[in-house]
């Protein structure tokens, strides 16, 4: 009997709650993001650099078509994504 009541309550909650919102909150990354690049090919007129801001951060594969390269390097020599 108790199980029936619990099931009915669960059904009621399910139908009252409706569909979950699609765009809920900010986009979250996992705490650990480890990748292994098995193959990497760029077009003949493009350059690729690989960055990782910190350990377990998502790796950034930065693609820069050579004819679109801007002279943006800072004096400090840092990356210029």
């Amino acid at each position, binding site marked *: 009997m108790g199980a029936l009541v619990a099931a009915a309550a669960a059904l009621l909650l399910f139908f009252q709650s409706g569909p979950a919102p699609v765009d809920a909150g900010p*986009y979250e990354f996992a705490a*650990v993001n480890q990748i292994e*690049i098995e193959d990497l090919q760029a077009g003949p007129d493009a350059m690729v650099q690989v960055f990782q801001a910190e350990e377990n951060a998502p790796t950034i594969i930065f693609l820069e078509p050579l004819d679109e390269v801007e002279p943006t390097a800072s004096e400090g020599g840092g990356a210029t*994504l």
Partner: protein
Amino acid sequence: MIRRLAIALVVGMLGLAVSPDVSLAAEKAGSAAKVGKVQLQMLVVHATTAHSNVDPKLSGLMKYLSPFKYTGFDLLNTHTATLGSNDGASFSIVGGRDVELTLLSTDEKAVRVRVQINQEQRGKLLDTTIRVNRNGSFIVAGPKHKEGVLVLPVTAKY
């Protein structure tokens, strides 16, 4: 006879009481051995120097991009595909570019994903195969767009 019947009845009732847990355990064991579909999600973000507004949905991305020169980040689109092994999905993004994501293989710990970016009139821009951990992400960035570049975080959720 009656005693045997009673014992059988008790054992049967115990079996009924235990069976849900047993079936749940069996189900868990099955899911551990088999990886089903994987949801690949790709954001299309415009990183720009034209303004300093940041879409609130991108707050988690900022700490990884803060060392770079861009000040404004707009979320242009979110693409999602639920794929099995050897399935692919193609997305058109701004600038006449197409991004094709192919799920090459999966296991409990990681997936192998091929990412191909092509652009009208230029052909192949990038073709890479990456092994990424379960629920992990990587970011492809660089294609120019207006006063900035496109940033494409890709996440494998399963």
